């Protein structure tokens, strides 16, 4: 093939495909998962997302920090939505000894942050602290076995290195400040990592990557909206707000598939291996996807050789709030081991398959 013919072919492919450059989803994920955004405090992460979107896409933002843009026109209206909030806690009070207590919740097993660092995101900047181990943690067990009090978020006693409330406040800590576990990325191998906040920053990164590769002028005969919504982890509140203004025919919620690909889980269901492709969440705790739609997605994926796995698991998704308005919810995912932990695992191949699937659906969905 001579060079001129090759150039013409490349231009032809680019003109009919909604996708432009190579995927940068992996790099975006490694960046965005470090940006704080506890539910109800998504400002930093939503600004990050909006700041990365191409200017020509005319992104909108509401008071809750939902961010979205729409391209194309007509029906069907397809909505892709990923949630930008992450699990974490909120400062409830500061004790006279300068210790920080948090409100109930968090969504993470409290035991996994016992005696571990956390970061309080204050108006003055980040303040590190250590969740105190439970009292008497190193005492000898008594001869008579006694029931140990459960270690919950309300039992957290966060040590900042100060000894008074005044000193804690001088650091900038105040009631209502969000806090997250200190994040570290464990690279298990090339393109395989485990860390906090993969749920749902992987969805955000996939959608952002798709937005960056999208060629809006190629979206014909349909309306496509990409949204990054807030407060999913605490009750799908951001999606509920969007559902008041958007009336999609199809919603593709982009969020974790809780996989049992681990040595501790029963393989009775939800066993979709990490590294084997994107996922269509056929059934979860909030939605049952019609089989006709599953087959449509599979056909699109097959046409472009995108690996897709189908599974049923637990957990809800943002698309479910659009069901009442008449939309069909088709959740897309990656297989995620250790969901809602400090070590949520993800494979680059799955993420890139997901972003490719999003673009393929933008192109081919009817």
């Amino acid at each position, binding site marked *: 093939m001579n060079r001129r013919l090759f150039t013409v072919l490349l231009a032809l492919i680019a003109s009919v495909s909604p996708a432009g450059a190579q995927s940068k989803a992996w790099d975006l994920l490694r960046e965005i998962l470090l940006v704080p955004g506890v539910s109800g405090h998504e400002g930093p992460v939503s600004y990050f997302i909006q700041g990365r979107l191409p200017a020509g896409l005319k992104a909108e933002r509401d008071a809750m920090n939902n961010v979205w843009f729409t391209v194309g026109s007509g029906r069907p209206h397809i909505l892709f939505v990923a949630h930008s909030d992450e699990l974490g806690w909120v400062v409830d009070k500061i004790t006279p000894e300068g210790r920080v207590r948090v409100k109930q919740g968090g969504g993470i097993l409290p035991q996994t942050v016992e005696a571990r660092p956390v970061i309080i995101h204050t108006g003055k900047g980040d303040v590190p602290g250590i969740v105190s181990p439970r009292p008497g943690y190193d005492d000898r067990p008594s001869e008579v076995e006694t029931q140990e009090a459960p270690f919950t978020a309300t039992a957290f006693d966060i040590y900042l290195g100060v000894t008074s409330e005044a000193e804690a406040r001088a650091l900038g800590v105040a009631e209502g400040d969000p806090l997250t576990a200190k994040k570290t990325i464990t*690279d298990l191998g090339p393109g395989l990592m485990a860390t906090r906040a993969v749920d749902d920053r992987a969805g955000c990164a996939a959608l952002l990557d798709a937005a960056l590769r999208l060629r809006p002028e190629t979206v014909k005969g349909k309306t496509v909206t990409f949204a990054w919504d807030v407060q999913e982890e605490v009750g799908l509140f951001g999606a509920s707000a969007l559902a008041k203004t958007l009336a999609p025919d199809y919603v593709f919620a982009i969020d974790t598939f809780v996989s049992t690909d*681990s040595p501790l889980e029963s393989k009775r269901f939800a066993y979709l291996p990490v590294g084997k492709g994107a996922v269509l969440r056929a059934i979860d705790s909030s939605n049952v996807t019609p089989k006709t739609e599953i087959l449509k997605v599979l056909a699109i994926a097959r046409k472009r050789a995108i690996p897709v796995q189908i599974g049923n698991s637990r957990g809800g998704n943002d698309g479910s709030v659009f069901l009442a308005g008449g939309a069909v919810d088709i959740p897309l995912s990656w297989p995620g081991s250790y969901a809602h932990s400090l070590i949520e695992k993800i494979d680059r191949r799955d993420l890139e398959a997901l972003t490719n699937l999003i673009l393929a659906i933008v192109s081919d969905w009817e």
Partner: protein
Amino acid sequence: MAHRIGRTFGIVAAGVCLVAAAAGAADLRTVIKELFAVPSTTGNEDMLAAKIRGLLPKGAVIEVDPLGSIAVRLAGTPGPTLVLGCLDGYGHIVSGFTPEGYLTLDRPVAPPHARFDAYLLGQPVVISTAKGPVQGVISQPALHLLTQERRRTLVEGFSLENAYVDLGVRSEKEARAKGIEMLDAVTYPAVLTELAGDQWAGPGLGLKAAAAALVAVTGTLSGRTAREETVIAWAAQTKFMARGRGARPAIGAVRARTKWQPKRTIIVEAISAGKGDGFPFPGGGPVLVQAKDEPSELRSALEAAAAAAGAPLQFLTRPDSPMAAPFADRSADVVTLALPVRFLNTPSEIIAVKDLQALQDILQRFLQPGGGK
């Protein structure tokens, strides 16, 4: 257990010593961070020993013990005085491979407390192999799939029985291809958290900080004559206790006594502090520990050194630790100078840098010619 709180300040010398301490502080911080980055558990102390050897002054003659302990000797009048720190901390080892490529774990020694293994749940770990560090995570059940029964058995009852290291591979062959072998040390990543008040937190930090103080002291005094011939040693296998009836001394300390035959001994180790905001206090200075609250030449000398250095001291009376026990038959000649550590033997041990600086200053002053008088 009885205790007495005392604070000793050498008012005249304080100004001079504070300036000296400030000048040396940067070095001590650097040494702490260098040692902190190196994993070291009982039976796997070689990397930390090598790191310490690399930080010691060029030309220092290193004495070694076949179990892995290392020492340097300072010249002086016949002694020796032994200043004995630790090389090993608590941790885990690779005990097996599953066909799916997960690692199983064991401990080389008994845990320091009943909850020690439970901290592993859902955490990143580092396996120290001959080929270099390998990263992994300890599997945990997904929150969405937890029934009450699974919460009870897999979370509340988490133990080494259900601790699996996920390396991101699918077979034993792939796991071994990463260089992992049985008995390799498994520790938490060395992630340092700097808190307010110049307090630092991290896994195994108390041990590393105490070892760093000895490195800094050696660096200052090497090549000079000490108040008395002195062996500064970092002992391996200090968390492994000798078998037999009665007291269970630390093997590393037993061998140190046999090898160096000290006239007097200063044990340098970490001590649990700030429990329930009680005594001893983190930030209150090193803790001078004795089995009996009685005067001794060694204790007086250390108190005098602290006064001269302008460094605070706390005092605690308690039964001899496994490190001090081998020297207990001459109890007047063994003292423990401990670094107070908050949340000792958790993944976030917290030290106050000023306590460590005080520890270094006291030892330095004590070991100088005429020190402790």
